[in-house]
């Protein structure tokens, strides 16, 4: 049985210092076992300016078992799967302690964004790029932040403009982008194949 009174307290705690941390945790429905977390991309990293959403599922034995945390926003990072958003972070696995909270867990995820561990990768492709061609890694990470982690409509407009410039008709570009969830590459792929 999840300790809901503790989860309640954690949520209140989060709201209290949202100004300082920028970390937000909100329930997904009326059930407190599914939550949505939001972290700002750390300043001075390719993730700066982005807002990243995470899906949080609390196991029955929470807080004695770690919460299941996964990015829903696409991130280009050696320790985060570019496909599924799965995170490789020790405190979300065997180093979890019941004394940690959702807020501290998300702070650790944020710290992971600033300090990647390419030697213990979740996504081998990203880690390889990080090692072999750091500049390209930074560019890709920044590009993904621009493309997926910015909720402003400007991001979408830019993508539309880019694709239209490639010669695709605007209405189709818009509908395709929408269909693939704003992923520019996927949209391009789809546009080319249709």
């Amino acid at each position: 049985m999840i300790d809901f009174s503790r989860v309640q307290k954690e949520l209140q705690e989060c709201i209290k210092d949202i100004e300082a941390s920028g970390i937000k945790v909100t329930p997904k429905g009326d059930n407190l076992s599914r939550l949505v977390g939001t972290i700002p991309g750390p300043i001075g990293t390719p993730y700066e300016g982005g807002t990243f959403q995470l899906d949080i599922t609390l196991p029955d034995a929470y807080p004695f078992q770690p919460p299941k945390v996964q990015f829903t926003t696409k991130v280009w990072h050696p320790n985060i799967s570019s496909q599924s958003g799965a995170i490789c972070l020790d405190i979300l696995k065997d180093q979890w302690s019941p004394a940690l909270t959702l807020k501290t867990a998300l702070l650790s995820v944020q710290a992971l964004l600033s300090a990647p561990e390419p030697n213990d990768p979740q996504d081998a492709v990203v880690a390889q790029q990080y090692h072999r061609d750091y500049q390209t890694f930074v560019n890709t990470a920044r590009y993904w932040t621009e493309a997926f982690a910015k909720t402003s409509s400007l991001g979408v407009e830019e993508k539309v403009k880019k694709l239209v410039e490639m010669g695709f008709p605007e209405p189709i570009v818009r509908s395709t982008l929408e269909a693939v969830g704003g992923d520019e590459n996927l949209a391009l792929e789809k546009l080319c194949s249709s």
Partner: protein
Amino acid sequence: MDGGFSSDEGCYSSDCESLDGLENDEPGLNWSSSKGPSTRVIRKESLLAEQKGVLQRVMDVLSLREHHARALLIHYRWDREKLLSVFGEKGKPYLFNDAGIPDVDEQGKDSSATSSIEMCDICMEEVSGSEATRMDCGHCFCNNCWTEHFIVKINEGQSRRIRCMAHKCNATCDDSIVSTLVRRRHPDLAEKFDRFLLESYIEDNKMVKWCPSAPHCGNAICVDEDEFCEVECSCGLQFCFSCLSEAHSPCSCSMWDLWTKKCRDESETVNWITVHTKPCPKCHKPVEKNGGCNLVSCICGQAFCWLCGGATGRDHTWSSIAGHSCGRYKEDQEKKAERAKRDLYRYMHYHSRYKGHLDSFKLENKLRETIQEKVSISENNSTLRDFSWVTNGLYRLFRSRRVLLYSYPFAFYMFGEELFKDEMTDEDRELKQHLFEDQQQQLEQSIERLSKFLEEPFDQYDEKKVMDIRMRVIDLSVTTDDLCRKMYQCIENDLLGSLQLGTHIIAPYLSKGIERASELVTCLSTQVDGSEKFLSSDFSKADDSGCSSRKRARKESHLFDLNMPAEVTDRKCGF
């Protein structure tokens, strides 16, 4: 033997007195004082005592509390020597830190005497001090949260090392607190936890293994020094301690593993295959001729002549195969076909010897009853009273037959190409093989003669003839024992001992047969190292039966015990 006995007892009691001291920390002293068996049975009931004994010693040396000693020992896989050497080399702080033990001697004892209200950082509630528990590391949380934490960890199978709930605190929780708190909510889970800790002594310990008997007898066996040995559990099962399969020396564990696999795969079919098939000259698979002419084609596509086994073309008439004549000599093909055939024959040769002796071994086991009958008839009818030579001869027969039996798979691998192709030159191999086979042959002859004399109907003979048989059986027993020992020596020194590339270790030869693990009855003051494992009750039992062997004490009911020391009577008779 009697002298050795009383000295054993003397050692035992002196050990008891100095239990809390360190004087008997030197295993060398104890080793020299007696040749006690180096293997012991640990029963379900004695496991606790056994574990407590080791714990006590570590607690004494390092002046620790029990749960700290247990955490340390679990961390070091119950290797007390290793633990103490790390302590000696790197000191207490390193040792403790490594195993997650807070380096505190004084702190933590005032756990209940803290403030009356505690804030639990886990459930974020305030609880009264009596509802909270402080661990040795200084972290305090409410009992409810501790209990939840323990339950989750026990269910995750991490009973052996439950960490404190505080983030980055490496400390191991006090197992008595774990047990007490969990018991309040889930008594059965607390049982499970206690059992996990107890069984850690067996499962995390390379010198202790569960007896592989099925259904399980509940016992574990502990060896003192050499893990390459063969033991007999008190349930009667004899096994190789190293690989837990049947006792198989002079075969090494890996040889035995290969052999049993090979036998499983091949033995049933080998006979049929050799009678009904020929190996394909290309892929060497056995091919069955299912009618038709002498042209056979294998599934690999190769056609060959059934008569000579040579590769051929596919065109044929009833009387001839195109492009093929059995008279023509083709060295290459012949060699390949020969090799496949040779490999199979080689295996069959060793297997049939192995199987033959295995069958004899089983048949001779039945001899027990008939011989027992003959002995009792003779004891009644004859003036000769002592027929122990018969039983001793019989044990010698069993034991040496066993050695001979396993020497065939050994030879199969030792002189084959599978394991040691690059270990020796062909000449070297041939030389060694001859040497070994000579010994094997001698042993075989002596065993067969022993078997023949034991089967004689001596209960119907007159005394003179019985005395004659007696002399021969005794003679042969000694010779056979010698030959077995020599064979082991040859294997250990000249054959396996000279290997460069791999290591194969076999259990040592014991003239008395596989050692029966001694039994610890139950005593909290168990000695763990050294060799004094006996309790006075064990001895008195041995005394009662009037038997000079401690091993025999438990098997009085069994007239024929494979492990009865034969040399007692063997040597009585002039050797």
